[in-house]
């Protein structure tokens, strides 16, 4: 699949007469891990919901795999875009592997293929040993990893959809440090298969460590876009969060580090 996975051209979104996004343009390429940051209420979630197809652009155009937003069918969207919610409402006693298998429901690839994909997704999220556990009994972090395995299974194969986009809303919120790192590595490996990843991240150090590209959203506008290490400056942090942050460089790798 040549060409971008997602393309936003001068997109504005107005909800209840409030302009939540203003003239935002963005192109996502396969294999790219992009993080979005910005203060609360800046429009990050609105942007994710727009791309997930839950909201319509008031002006401007959104193209997914070359198709304009008004022509996305439910099944087209489900095969191309997977969304990890911030919190999950599931409280029925599905097992972990059954939850992951639900990710395959947009496809009719047969139980053999689906079972292999579920196995692979469970392994990628280090959940294989918990596969028979009941979902409501898991800890918050285990639930989050199960849900990530589910959305990865949804867009696992290139054969099912040439252009694949993974949207993550605060994926590391309930994870310990070890599993934060493991999740980010798994997401990077997944992106390397040709998936575009777009995630909302509050932890700038995680963004610096694992994202190829960082977008900063402020009052509905894109105020910064570029390689994470170049985008983050003290001025930007002041603008976004009104906080005085110190920017260091790692003594060995030279990678920037943010300290509030």
């Amino acid at each position: 699949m040549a060409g971008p996975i997602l393309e936003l051209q001068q997109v504005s979104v107005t909800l209840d007469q409030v302009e939540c996004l203003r003239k935002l343009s963005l192109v996502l390429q396969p294999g790219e891990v992009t993080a979005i940051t910005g203060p609360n209420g800046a429009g990050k979630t609105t942007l994710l919901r727009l791309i997930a197809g839950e909201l319509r652009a008031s002006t401007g155009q959104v193209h997914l795999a070359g198709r304009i937003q008004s022509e996305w069918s439910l099944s087209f969207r489900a095969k191309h875009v997977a969304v990890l919610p911030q919190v999950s409402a599931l409280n029925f006693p599905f097992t972990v592997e059954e939850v992951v298998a639900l990710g395959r429901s947009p496809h009719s690839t047969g139980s053999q293929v689906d079972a292999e994909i579920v196995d692979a997704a469970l392994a990628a999220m280090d959940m294989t040993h918990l596969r028979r556990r009941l979902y409501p009994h898991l800890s918050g972090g285990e639930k989050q990893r199960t849900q990530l395995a589910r959305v990865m299974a949804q867009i696992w194969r290139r054969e099912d959809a040439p252009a694949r986009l993974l949207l993550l809303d605060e994926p590391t919120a309930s994870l310990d440090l070890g599993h934060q790192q493991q999740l980010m590595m798994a997401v990077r490996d997944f992106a390397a298969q040709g998936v575009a990843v777009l995630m909302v991240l509050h932890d700038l150090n995680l963004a610096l460590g694992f994202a190829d590209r960082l977008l900063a959203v402020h009052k509905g506008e894109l105020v910064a876009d570029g390689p994470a290490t170049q985008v983050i400056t003290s001025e930007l942090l002041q603008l976004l969060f009104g906080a005085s942050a110190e920017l260091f460089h790692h003594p060995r790798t030279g990678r920037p580090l943010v300290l509030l």
Partner: protein
Amino acid sequence: MRPLNHIAQIWPVLLLAAGLVLLASVVASLCFGALTFTPTDLWAWLTGRADAQTQLILGQLRLPRTLLAALVGGLLAICGTATQGLFRNSLADPSLIGVSAGAAAGASVAIVLLRDVQWSLWGLSLVSLGAFAGGLLVVLLVYRLARGASGTSVVTMLLGGMAFTFLAGAFTSLLEFMADNDMLRRMSLWRMGGLDGADFVRVGLLAVVTTGIAALLLRQRQALNALLLGESEARHLGVDVQCLQRRVIVCVALGMGVAVATAGTIAFIGLVVPHMVRMLVGPDHRYVLPLSGCVGAILLVLADTFARSVMAPTELPVGLVTAFIGAPVFISLLRQRRYLGIGS
């Protein structure tokens, strides 16, 4: 962990076992009652060698009644499963959206205000038709209330169901206030639920409705499973959530309306059976819907047999029996709510 882990492999065996237990309970129901028959009598009846009285009791009274109990029980359990899936809450019961209260009000109207009208349709009396119309009307109003610009709000439906339950209850009370003694007794007996008055016309009607609704809901099994994840998650998996909700509500309203119209309000089958089945096979609707149908049928057949024989020749209303069995079972299930995932 779950008692049955490899459900896909043992599913045919499990379904067959449930079918055999259902058959056994049907045989038990035919045997026991005011008059007890032995299996030999049954065999004689089946091969056409029984005397006229046995022929009449088994063929014209017990068989239609047993079949009706099985169909109503299955229908109630299937509607309960679908309602719990729709509300993503394993405590939801079809009566939550106002069906039972609306049906009671409709039946009361027929008993009190239309007592001089003798008219029936497909073997259903005017009381049954009133119950059906009342239940359907309330669900329709609740659904219209809950349907907004951004889809159907489940919370509004629950609260609306509650409000209409109160309204229908007040209306029923008003009619009770106006009614004479005979009407009062008929109203309260109707509300306790009973399967007397079963005949093959009703059995036929129930068979069509039950299989139709079971087939329609079973076709939505994947979408219903995805809906358990949450509405927007289901949408991201390609489910047309609004359309699914509309279909399930129509099925439940029709099914409950017909069940209440033929058998009055029978408590707890729709609430408890899906619970028990989920404990065994998990929440996948592919398995829960058919198995709930079987277990619901078994339970109501057995409850009706008990209701007919415990104080024979007097019959207890079967709704009383299910309530007496169902409430303790439900309480014991509540004690394991962490397992059932009702939430802490």
